[in-house]
């Protein structure tokens, strides 16, 4: 069990799930892979299929249509898989909260492991969020 989580923290393959975002957070996520931040140093890789993913990065405020798809995609992931909400929209729906096409917040639909706020969050903030998630997992492991 401990080896499993340790290997997982050293090689996080992320799947990028855009649930009706404005694309700003998505651009910042792709920034993480550029030479300036290069998250492949920590074994983080973008993958194309949700079956390969260890973490799902959700961006956007999730409208009516996206909600059903998001539920299905998250259910398709192989466990253990973390869900990370990126940007104010995914964390709290922000100013779209009272809009006619929004139903509920992301954490009512899926179990979110980390919230990274910002509009859009800086790449540094995302790295910090992922590091906090890893540390929380390792700390939970030590308690056991």
């Amino acid at each position, binding site marked *: 069990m401990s*080896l499993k989580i340790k290997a997982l923290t050293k090689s996080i393959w992320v799947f990028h799930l855009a649930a009706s975002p404005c694309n700003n957070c998505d651009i910042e996520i792709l920034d993480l892979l550029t030479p300036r931040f*290069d998250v492949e140093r920590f074994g983080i890789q973008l993958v194309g299929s949700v079956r390969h993913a260890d973490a799902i990065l959700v961006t956007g405020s999730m409208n009516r249509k996206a909600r059903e798809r998001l539920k299905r995609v998250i259910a*398709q992931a192989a466990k253990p898989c973390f869900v990370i909400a990126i940007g104010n929209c995914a964390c709290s729906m922000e100013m779209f909260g009272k809009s006619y096409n929004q139903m509920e917040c992301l954490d009512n639909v899926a179990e979110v492991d980390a919230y990274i706020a910002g509009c859009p969050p800086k790449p540094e903030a995302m790295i910090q969020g992922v590091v906090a998630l890893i540390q929380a997992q390792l700390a939970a492991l030590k308690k056991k």
Partner: protein
Amino acid sequence: MSIVQGIGYLLIGFLAAAIIGMFAHWFDRKITAKVQWRVGPPFFQPLYDLVKLLAKEVIVPEGASRFLFLSAPLFGLAAVSVVSALLIRTVIFPQQTFIGDLIVVIYLLTIPSQAVILGAFASANPLASLGGSREMKLILSYELPFVLAILVPVIKAGDTIRLGAILEHQATHGAVIASISGVIAFVISLICMQAKLAKVPFDVPEAETEIMGGAYIEYSGAALGLFKLTQWMMMFVVPFFLMMLFIGAVNWRQSWLNIVWAGIIYIGILLFMTLVRNTNPRLRIDQIMKFFWAKITPIAVVAVILAFLGL
């Protein structure tokens, strides 16, 4: 050879290919990172990836053929392990190999690709079957020039289809690559190797940006891990096979320095593969077929004719 010895060789072949293949995969990613002005993954990254994948949940999609879906990765892994064991045994005891092992190796080297096709079609996903059909067309494209290129060392070594005899011939008469036909055939086989390993520009079966992992799209956990391991082992087995056929540099009986020399050549081949991968766009499948059938195959035929003439 007793059963115990056979299992021992198989274990050695598997471990050697797995360890060197993981190194090759790390090297590939590191050089890619350097080309893109990044830092790149740590040395043990392939090991972390493999352990993580082996520990994850395996999902069999609804409507998939369960037996075929789960056994396809094993076929590929078994075939690569056998090839690796055969090649390593040939290098250690060149006299003791059987006649026709060259043909066995060529056969076994296509099984990983066929395992990918089987797994893709068994997974009941339209994108996966698209990847599977592309992989099939890819095999049809590169297999003929690959076999033609391999005919050149066979002719040079005096019409023998025994790997050990080809190695011994090169130890006494010089490497195959030191002739015109040898150079042409070696370059052709390097290009075919790129297609065999499904690397850019020939990575249409998995094409991440258009069909999202293609043949592997439904695979998760240990099954995906075994497929990845097979791919990495192929990165050791195929270059090693070509080095035995064309360069003969793995002949350690003459001097121990030859092993170092073989290592340097192997890293050179890996570097070539990685740089080609990083400086080329992905070709469409029809372009690949045209490239192999209209351009590479005629050149391979010319190489075979030159070899017959003794050039």
